[in-house]
């Protein structure tokens, strides 16, 4: 392996490396960090972000952005909570359906009406948030405990939280779609050079349509898990989720301009940010210093910057990583 290739490999797996270092750090420093309870609760909580980040990853790979995911998740949670008395599956379907509706509107705005993704999804972020508040009458909507809806977010399957199973399955599907279907390769081609993609005869608009739709659906699914996990539809949750998702995607080495990206690295990015949050909580628990939520925010921001700068340095010396098959 030549030196530039090694560096480029480090660049693309830098996020995995950082993740491992962080886990080792937590393991060495805190007693209960690598304990079943902590692991399952971190996974349970972060699976929502993982779903949102997966959708975001696909949107960003086409060179777009989806700012509406946070409020879409909030809307999904409210709709799911409202529908949950009809049954767990109906609640699930309703929440995902609400997300797909938002995604559909985004897709139409971006591909048919040619509105810039930033503007279109910003508008939808406000609209979805408002709809969630209207439907919920400005308060949390309690879910039905009789229908078994709460199992989705709170139960385990083979000793593993169900939300984590859902996230893992969607990531596997996402990975296959990206790497082994023509639509997936089209996603990267559109982001890399949209004009060329059109001239090559690929359905650029259809590909973009699909990613916004998927992003909405995944945000809706995250909303279902939110409602189920906390026992209530949360119209005011989801604030800043889009930024968390973008951060996770970027930390995973996906270019904001599109054309380069990885599903696996995005998952690593989500875990990195989630576990960093977890580590900071443990640090507070030790009682040496007390970090307020504000300080935690500052530290997370700085950490994010360090990882991104490192990655930029590494990959500019090597080359952009492309998966080899």
């Amino acid at each position, binding site marked *: 392996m030549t030196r530039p290739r090694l560096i480029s490999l480090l660049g693309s797996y830098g996020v995995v490396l950082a993740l491992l270092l962080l886990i080792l750090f937590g393991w060495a420093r805190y007693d209960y960090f690598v304990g079943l309870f902590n692991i399952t609760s971190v996974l349970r909580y972060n699976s929502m972000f993982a779903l949102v980040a997966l959708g975001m990853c696909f949107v960003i790979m086409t060179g777009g952005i989806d700012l509406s995911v946070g409020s879409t998740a909030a809307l999904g949670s409210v709709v799911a909570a409202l529908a949950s008395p009809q049954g767990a599956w109906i609640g699930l379907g309703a929440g995902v359906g609400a997300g797909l509706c938002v995604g559909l509107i985004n897709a139409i705005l971006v591909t048919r009406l040619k509105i810039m993704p930033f503007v279109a999804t910003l508008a939808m972020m406000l609209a979805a948030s408002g709809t969630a508040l209207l439907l919920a009458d400005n308060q949390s909507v309690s879910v039905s405990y009789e229908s078994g809806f709460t199992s989705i977010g709170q139960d385990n399957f083979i000793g593993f939280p169900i939300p984590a199973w859902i996230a893992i399955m969607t990531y596997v599907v996402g990975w296959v779609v990206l790497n082994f279907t023509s639509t997936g*390769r089209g996603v*990267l*081609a559109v982001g*890399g*050079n949209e004009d060329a993609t059109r001239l*090559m005869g*690929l359905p650029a608009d259809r590909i973009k349509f699909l990613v916004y739709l998927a992003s909405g659906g995944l945000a809706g699914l995250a909303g279902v898990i939110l409602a189920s996990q906390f026992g209530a539809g949360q119209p005011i949750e989801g604030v800043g989720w889009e930024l968390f998702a973008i951060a996770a995607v970027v930390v995973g080495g996906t270019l904001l301009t599109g054309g380069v990206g990885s599903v696996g690295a995005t998952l690593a990015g989500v875990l990195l940010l989630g576990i960093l949050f977890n580590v900071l909580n443990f640090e507070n628990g030790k009682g040496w210093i007390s970090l307020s939520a504000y300080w935690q925010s500052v530290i997370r921001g700085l950490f994010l910057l360090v990882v991104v700068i490192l990655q930029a340095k590494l990959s500019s010396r090597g080359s952009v990583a*492309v998966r080899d098959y």
Partner: protein
Amino acid sequence: MILRLASALIGRWLFFGISIAMPEPSDAFRIGFAMNTDNLLSMTAIDKRFAGIPALSGASFAVGRGEVHALIGQNGAGKSTLIKVLTGYYKRDAGEVVFDGKPFEVSSPQQAQASGISTIYQEINLVPYRSITENICLGREARRCGLLDWKRMHQEAEALLQRFNVRADVRRPLMEFNTATQQMVAIARAIGFSAKLVIMDEPTSSLDEREVAVLFNVIRQLKQEGVSVVFVSHKLDELYEVCDRVTIMRDGRTVKTAAMNEIDKIGLVSAMLGRAIERAEGHATAFSDRDEKKIGKVLLSAENLAINQIVQDVSFNVRSGEIAGFAGLLGAGRTETARLVFGIDRPRAGTMIFNGQTFDPNKPSDAIAAGMGFCTEDRKSEGIVPDMSVAENMMLALMPKLSKSGVIDEKAQRDIVERFIRQLGIKCSGPDQKVRELSGGNQQKVLLGRWLAMNPRLLILDEPTRGIDVGAKAEIQALIKTLADQGLAVLMISSELEEVIEGADRVFVLREGISVAEFDRDEATEDAVMSAMAHGSAPTVAGAAP
């Protein structure tokens, strides 16, 4: 001396060209001719208008099976429009197209591709971040059990490239490879679509000699396999190497089609420019006879400038109060030379002396500080800011000077703007009108005003009258003359032969990146300049620079 060096270089180039063209002349000859009767493509009487302005009027174009057909013409002659009509990018207004024996109606490049017409665009239209395999196979991937079969796609891509003797790791991203390989990937992609006709739009513009030789071998190979090629290029020598026939376009018409071995370069150039070799009488431009006594000392002299294959060896000089003209075909390196002078690009070799001192600008602001101005060829994208007002556009370059302490002196600004609106005769409702709303000629005057406000000593004008109507053209030309009479040194690039010949006090002819000839006003006849543009040497050769 310079001339001798230049012609030696050209001689070598020609020799090189001939030596690789030699192998199979009789073959090429036979195929070329046998095919003329059986056309793969024929376009007849094509009309295309944009907003009522004709881009094509009655253009006709035919390509035989297995023929390599050159399509040439000046900028704006209609080559790209013709190609885009063929590939379904534009819809024609009138005329008929027959391809492969059937009437041909397509409404998109995709459909054209599916019917067997592939286009390789000048700027390589691929996805740089993705692997070679993906770039070749995108849109027609191999599948197994519904999922992509990477192994087979890699093999196919490798096999396609090997046909052209290109060995490359098809798994690596395209951006890691040189331009020639990228070009081959583009060609492989085009041919992989089982093309019957491949259109190459200036495929050699970014290749070096060796890479061009490889490309030409590919073209010959295509030809042998019965694939027809439409070859668009500005480098005349290349046409003689690979093409069987040539069609020349001018003003939206196809003015001439000839077998390559029946037309010489002068014939090509004069058909492109639409000038008979005999000189037309009378003045066609507003550059009336100039008073040459006002011409002063040499202000800028450049020796042996080079940057890449586009500018290889250019030497010239401009004197105060003089209009020096650059003549040459598209791609001869005129604009690129101007960019070197103005510090936009950095030369790889060569020296410049400006106003008696060594001049080596790092960036445009160095050139501006030294007293230069540059009106670019592409007024829309590099010159004006359409949504800013006349005043703001005019002040852009001057701003740093006027605002010494960071505060802009409104009064001084107004005075200057109003003076230039008056002096240049800019027709606008006032300094606050948006430049977008002005005519092309008046936009150009605003740009002139921008540089004149800097009180420059040398003004570089790249195609100063392009896209401007006849009346305004004469006004701009008269203005340039007046400015030179007042002592300004002007370096004027123009693709309109008469503008250079009548306007310039001295004409420098560039050909394929080399300054091949220099003419004084008396020597600069149309046939002399055209001959230098075509061959690199002239019947009447001027001496070295004074």
